[in-house]
């Protein structure tokens, strides 16, 4: 701090001199209340903006980055088809993942040691092995089980049989791998959510004669949502990008088709950029959706994104929008 005395200023270097005869009266209620000024923040904004401009400049004018190629492929039919597969894979595997997750979480919290152990073994195995390994395994299921049948086990008569190679396409293998793996993570999220609900809620439901299933679906799960939704949003956004792993089993998703294109025309960076831009679009939409859902499930608790940035910069603004 500057302790030098400035002529005409009060001791301590205060910039605003208040003379006793001008000071507002004690009963003057028109005074404005503000927070401390934050000059450092404006400096940081300036520095960050300069850096961003420089970064954008070096990328945009880079002659090695073929923007014409990016533009040509951004809305290419093949890319858009891959994009569709990525969206489909994400949605279906998340829905299946939640379904599996809820069932496994309930099993983990059940009285039956058999159910608890089964659920434990499931999460242990599918969280403990790499997703990449699981995907390749499902795709190559035919190596282990050439024929899939419904009937009596242990070489008994079979009602109906399929060739594994015909049933397990790249898409099916991708769905199996992604949803079974996701189920293991969702199970832990759902379990934490269920356990966050006051045990008194279960008793209150039981005391009016509700069944365990009714208590779970009508009382416990709706309240657990508050705890489940934020990590679920994370998982969803993560899944949007994790689907790119299925390129190793010819999943025909956005990443796979981008790879096929750049292996043919050698425009590696341009096509990776095309894919990345689409992934960013998807994750941005998902983030907006996540905030909307969070607001829906915890009224008043979720901060409003757009006003937060401004609120942090402007002193004296209180978060009056938080309760809306």
């Amino acid at each position: 701090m500057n302790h030098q005395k400035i002529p005409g200023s009060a001791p301590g270097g205060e910039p605003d001199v208040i003379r006793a005869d001008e000071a507002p009266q004690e009963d003057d209620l028109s005074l404005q209340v503000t927070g401390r000024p934050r000059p450092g923040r404006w400096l940081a904004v300036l520095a960050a903006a300069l850096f961003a401009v420089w970064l954008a400049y070096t990328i945009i004018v880079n002659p090695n980055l073929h923007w014409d190629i990016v533009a040509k492929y951004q809305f290419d039919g093949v890319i858009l088809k891959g994009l569709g597969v990525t969206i489909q894979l994400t949605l279906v595997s998340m829905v299946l993942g939640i379904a599996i997750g809820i069932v496994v979480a309930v099993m983990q919290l059940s009285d039956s040691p058999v159910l608890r152990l089964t659920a434990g073994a499931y999460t242990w195995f599918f969280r403990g092995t790499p997703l990449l390994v699981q995907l390749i395994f499902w795709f190559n299921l035919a190596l282990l089980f050439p024929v899939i049948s419904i009937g009596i086990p242990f070489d008994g008569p079979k009602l109906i049989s399929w060739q594994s190679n015909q049933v397990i396409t790249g898409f099916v293998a991708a769905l199996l791998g992604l949803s079974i793996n996701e189920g293991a993570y969702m199970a832990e999220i759902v379990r934490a959510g269920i356990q966050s609900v006051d045990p008194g809620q279960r008793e209150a439901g039981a005391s009016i004669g509700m069944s365990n299933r009714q208590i779970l679906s009508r009382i416990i799960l709706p309240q657990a949502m508050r705890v489940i939704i934020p990590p679920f949003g994370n998982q969803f956004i993560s899944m949007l990008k994790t689907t790119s792993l299925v390129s190793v089993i010819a999943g025909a998703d956005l990443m796979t088709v981008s790879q096929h294109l750049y292996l043919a025309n050698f425009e590696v960076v341009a096509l990776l950029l095309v894919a990345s831009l689409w992934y960013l679009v998807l994750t941005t939409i998902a983030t907006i959706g996540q905030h909307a859902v969070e607001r829906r499930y915890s009224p008043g608790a979720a901060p409003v994104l757009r006003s937060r940035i401004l609120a942090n910069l402007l002193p004296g603004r209180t978060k009056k929008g938080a309760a809306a």
Partner: protein
Amino acid sequence: MNDVILKARGVRKRFGDTEVLKGIDLDVRSGEVLCVIGPSGSGKSTLLRCFNHLERIDAGRVWMDGELVGYEQHGPSGRVLRERRARDVRRQRERIGMVFQRFHLFPHRTAVQNVMEGPVAVKGRPRAQAEKQARKLLADVGLADRADHYPEQLSGGQQQRVAIARALAMEPALMLFDEPTSALDPELVGEVLGVMRDLARSGMTMVVVTHEMGFAREVADRVLFMDRGAVVEAGSPDLLFTDPRHDRTRAFLSTVL
């Protein structure tokens, strides 16, 4: 005297090494208000929770309307008490309403939805009919204008009155109150006790675990004093409060009165 609606004989319950109920015998008659008093940890709440099978018991039997609660006699000479099917336990619980110390309203449902929950989900009543009944019950407990509020928008006393309406919506034959005013700010106790007093006057059979001696004295037909997992004595409030027979009762009353 009216018929015995709830009967307990030799009820025992232990948590780990501590035996919290050491053989409780009890009769509750139809239309009677029974207040259970006693120091903290004397087993009052646990006893109440055994009556609707929220708590399993280790020995003894509880009957509601002559039917064993939570268990059925099994084996060649009926000497094994086997836990009932969940469906039967639920049917028994429908007849017994319970009000908890900490309300346990469903926070994601409005007051009227809380009250409707049992009739709609358990009894399969049409929503419109259940809502009509729920609004009437809320009016009875003085909350007609709070029916569409969420629990967090209500005071503790209002929440507890909604909880009473929720239990009454199942049209129970017996109401259990587990320290219904212990979690309330002092100025809110009166409104809940008022609702309970009205309920008692309407002829509801009630077992009330409470620390409100004034309420017990005024409303109870009988008062039962419990200490260390056993019933020390029971009798009319006039007798028990003015002339207790046991030293333990006298000592307890001298600390709370």
